[in-house]
């Protein structure tokens, strides 16, 4: 789907999530300061919204930071609750947010780790740290086309193996491409363009 024409959204599409910085008086949890000290440069941005802490990590530091969060006794994020992605097509710094919901069964605290990547940037797989990531990363790959490098079994999981396109992307039509996309993607694109032109007229 890389060569699909950029589908101009009807309304002004949001260009990214709202990530309010924590208020000055908020006590930053120990695990975040530990991460900041343990892996330098790993916390690019910090936000607190509705009581959830989010740490934005550069892709280059993801594996290191994950390993630290998993192993460090103060963090002990041993449980990968969820792994998902959000698509912000117009965003300059890369369209995808890949989000890791981490939980610690020992300390019972949560944190969200977020990496911002462009369409073709590979994201290192965290399956070696949390085996649970295996299927979750497959689903993100299946739905968004996020490229996970080092994944042991990177295949589609919910959609058929030969499916064209990534359904959860914002430029993927809700009603799906229909049979035509499966059989002949080029004809499908032409048909869609024709429809859009008809819409404008």
């Amino acid at each position, binding site marked *: 789907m890389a060569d699909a024409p950029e589908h101009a959204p009807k*309304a002004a599409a*949001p260009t990214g*999530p*709202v990530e*309010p910085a924590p208020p000055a008086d908020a006590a930053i949890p120990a695990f975040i300061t530990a991460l900041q000290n343990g892996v330098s440069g790993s916390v690019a941005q910090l936000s607190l*919204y*509705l009581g*959830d802490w989010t740490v934005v990590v550069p892709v280059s530091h993801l594996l290191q930071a994950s390993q630290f969060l998993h192993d460090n006794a103060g963090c002990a994020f*041993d*449980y*990968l*609750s*969820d792994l*998902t992605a*959000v*698509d912000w097509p117009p965003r300059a710094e890369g369209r995808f947010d890949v*989000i890791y*919901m981490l939980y610690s*069964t020992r300390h*019972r605290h*949560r944190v*969200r780790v977020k990496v911002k990547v462009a369409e073709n940037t590979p994201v290192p797989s965290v399956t070696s740290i*949390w*085996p*649970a*990531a*295996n*299927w*979750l990363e497959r*689903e993100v790959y299946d*739905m968004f086309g996020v490229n996970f490098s080092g994944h042991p079994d990177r295949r*589609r*999981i*919910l*959609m*058929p193996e030969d499916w064209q396109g990534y*359904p*959860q992307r914002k430029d*993927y039509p*809700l009603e*799906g491409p229909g049979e035509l996309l499966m059989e002949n993607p080029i004809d499908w694109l032409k048909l869609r363009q024709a429809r859009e032109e008809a819409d404008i007229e």
Partner: protein
Amino acid sequence: MFDTSELVINMGPQHPSTHGVLRVILRLDGEKVVDAEVVIGYLHRGIEKLSENRNWTQIVLLTDRMDYVAAATSNVGYCETVEKLLNVEVPRRAQYVRTILMELQRIASHCLWVGTHAMDIGAMTVFLYAFRERELILDLFEEFCGARLTYNSMRIGGLPQDIPPGWDKKVLAFCDIMDGKIDEYETLLTHNRIWLERTKGIGVISGPEAIGLGLCGPALRGSGVARDVRKDEPYSAYAEMDFDVPVGVQGDTYDRYLVRMEEFRQSLRIIRQATQGIPEGPIVGKVPRLIKPAAGETYHAIESPKGELGYFIVSDGKSTNPYRFRVRPPSFCNLQGLPRLVRGHLVADVVALIGSIDIVLGEVDR
């Protein structure tokens, strides 16, 4: 000395004990499972994508279709997430009724589980006994919201309607009936020699490994990890309830069975407390007429009968539909552990283990 080859068997997607359209490709050496590959997606309806194109209130209906044997739980999970985004406080009366509904739903879901699990292992009577009691719960739900399976029984901010008069008495009466029925199931299974032989030592998984694999709910608690969202991150009225979190020791199929059987009793305990303590008051909080949460994102998890059911919702603050709607399906994450559990066991154990992790394909595939 002998030339042996592995037998590849396709279990499902049409198979009586894969609980829906699950397909497991088994590589067998004799009857021993060498490796298993789980193929899912046959029931994929794109609920996440669909939800991003529906308005906030319409999504409640879609959540029914995920874990369709515990629809009320999915409803509550979604509504609470949106309430968190909206910063709406839900009246205590609604919280209590939600708690009762969720626990009833847990019992109904566990009834279905104990029935099918026992059926998979060959004890057919438990199946019908369990369905008999599930029927009583469905009757209670029918009286509450008019539906028996997909309830659509929750509104953002509270309840769609107050409980019918006398409903709480009926719930209490049900609890009294259920007490004896759980003993009945246990008489048939818990100390049954064949049941013990079929479940003890099958699919053993240690606590740390289960955590790593992302198992949740009874599957995780069976391995001795006392992780229960109701206790750890209380929601609804659970903070005011007094209940225990049962955990297993060995982490085998039998322990997961015992954990769920004990959860029946704990659920009854919660229902009794909640029903006797329903406070008076309104049933819906102050919710704007047009639901349009401020831009932001949040993750909220609840303990569904299958495990941690999480919703990750991103609102862009402009449109009347969520920008991103993500469900953390407990069945999906539990099913991921299946290949690890079945390796080295026999074909007969595969069905026991599928039953033991308690999946609903509607939720796995969404």
